[in-house]
């Protein structure tokens, strides 16, 4: 896929608010028909990125194009051709489901009927409640209504800013299924999420942290970027295990993951069995019971933590 046909392209985009750098030299392109994820913690610059792409903000430096149009110069054409669902529920709570939908259809110069087939899979789930005020909908239903409103004018690119934040696990899964259905109809979707587990549902992800892109790759490949052997470590008591492991001379990182700890060792070429033996001895000597150490394949979250660590080291080094 060459860049010219990419529906979303950012090159060296920088945006500051006062002394805060919200985006720093962001370069990425989203392929046509792709479900592209921006993954990273809150405050990382994801929303600013969306606002630049939806022509709400002007970048301080660099260029951004959507559907081949410049976000600064061609704002009116872009606004007609993209759909945007902001991070917050942003519909009129005192208007009914149907009134909201018809209003946003009119705003885009179309009607509910003309856009019905594209929103049908989503809208039909809430259509039985179309007389209900939007403010009285459940979280999952609000989200479906907001998505319907963002889609009713048949956009070519859809921007979704943290659509699953504050939504229950079942609704989240359903929502991602819907996004895959939409993608199958040819829509290009850019979606952001703070949840690492949702990254696996994207075609490609960009890891975003403090305004910088740490990595762009397929979700599976991002994990493979993890540079060192990784082990799951279990020990009782847990907190003492963390302390002891961090004191181990070869430890690079120790992060709690659910019940276990993910431990990475500095000695890249050492045999895993040797590392396991040494770790067990080290922990046993420090009174940790029930020690279990197993080698594991790094996931996207491990990679993210490692990249974040490198990033902050680089920042510290740069500042020093």
């Amino acid at each position: 896929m060459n860049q010219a046909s990419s529906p979303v392209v950012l090159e060296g985009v920088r945006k500051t608010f006062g002394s805060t750098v919200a985006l720093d030299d962001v370069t990425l392109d989203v392929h046509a028909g792709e479900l592209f994820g921006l993954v990273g913690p809150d405050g990382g610059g994801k929303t600013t990125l969306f606002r630049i792409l939806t022509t709400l903000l002007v970048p301080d430096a660099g260029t951004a194009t959507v559907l081949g149009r410049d976000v600064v110069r061609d704002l009116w054409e872009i606004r007609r051709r993209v759909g945007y669902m902001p991070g917050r529920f942003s519909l009129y709570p005192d208007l009914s489901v149907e009134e909201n939908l018809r209003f946003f259809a009119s705003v885009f110069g179309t009607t509910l009927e003309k856009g019905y087939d594209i929103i049908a899979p989503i809208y039909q789930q809430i259509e039985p409640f179309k007389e209900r005020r939007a403010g009285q909908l459940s979280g999952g239903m609000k989200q479906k209504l907001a998505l319907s409103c963002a889609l009713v004018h048949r956009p070519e690119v859809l921007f979704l800013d943290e659509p699953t934040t504050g939504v229950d696990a079942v609704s989240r899964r359903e929502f991602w299924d819907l996004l895959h259905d939409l993608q199958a109809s040819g829509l290009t979707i850019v979606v952001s999420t703070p949840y690492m587990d949702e990254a696996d549902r994207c075609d490609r992800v960009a890891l975003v942290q403090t305004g910088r892109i740490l990595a762009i790759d397929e979700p599976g490949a991002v994990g493979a970027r993890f540079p060192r052997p990784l082990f799951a470590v279990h020990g009782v008591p847990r907190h003492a295990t963390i302390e002891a492991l961090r004191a181990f001379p070869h430890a690079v990182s120790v992060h709690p993951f659910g019940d276990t700890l993910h431990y990475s060792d500095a000695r890249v070429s050492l045999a895993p069995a040797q590392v396991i033996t040494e770790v067990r001895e080290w922990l046993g000597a420090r009174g940790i019971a029930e020690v279990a150490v197993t080698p594991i394949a790094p996931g996207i979250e491990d990679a993210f933590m490692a990249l974040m660590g490198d990033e902050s080291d680089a920042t510290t080094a740069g500042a020093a």
Partner: protein
Amino acid sequence: MRAPERIQALAAFVIKEMRHILRDRQTLTILLLLPLAQVVLFGFAIRTDVNDIRLAIVDAAPDDATLALRARFTGNGRFRIVATAATVDVLEPLFRRGEADVALVIAPGLARALADGTPARLQLITDASNPNTGTTMQTYAGAVIRTWQAALPGARQGVTIEPQVRMLFNPTLESVNLFVPGLIALVLTLVTAQMTAISLSREKERGTLEILLVSPLRPWQIILGKVAPYLLLAFANVVTALVAAWVVFRVPFRGSLLLLLAASTLYALVGLALGVLIAARTESQRTAMMGSMIGTMLPSTLLSGMIFPIASLPWPLQLVSNIVPARWFIVIVRGIMLKGAGVVHLWQELLVLTVMFTVLLAVAIRSFRARLA
């Protein structure tokens, strides 16, 4: 987007806005009843005209002329004579105890002075502890003296009146007539400037403005769609205020209703532009409310001549009052309602409002950007 679609989008916006207004029943009820309540409350509560003025007369040497003058006061229904004395010594205790409102002091030799054509000296002393009623009483007493003077045969220019009161200029005789125009201005300010500011900043706060901005809607469509329903509401309020004023207080309406409605529309547009401007510059509903309170409601009440005459303001505030739209609008409404004035008499005020509207609209559209921040 083609023109029909733009109109359709605008119509949808206006309908949406009317739904917001109609569904917020409490606010709507308050807004509709407000002019009625205000006319009645202000009409009864803040009346500056006074009846039963207690008058003390100091007449050192009674003669035909002084008796004739005193008879004028006795015959006037507004005055009640509480004391008649030969020296001014009685006055201070009377005023201090609050038993007299106005004192008329007649210097000896009034009849001879009138006959000779030499200056005759009359002194009016008014309790000005309430400046508004003080001025009114002063005006009434002065009017009685002028009537008496006008009825004098021959040399009538010889009488000099020395009013002794903190000077306040209030040409009023019937305060409620003067309040109604001010109330119309106040209600219009509230419904246009304040409600638009609140409603627009609500869209900001809810995040819906962000979606509207990402849509193909142009800023003028958003602004027009936002203000159109409030213009209708403003119209309803003007009519309510006029009907209430006539039914409850028989406030006369001497001029052209059409001109008044046209002027009200102009004033409402000024208010709406101000509201948009305030909303564009504030981030939350609460600040928009405070902003419109300080930026529009207070000046419209205090610096418009509605309650305090412009001439009684300190000069810096008099200067400021020139940029208060209500100041000009009140002159227009008073002119139309009370004097039956037409465009010929009011074109200057109308022009001032038109200029204000143009400037505010330009600034409002400039501050209401097509983007965030």
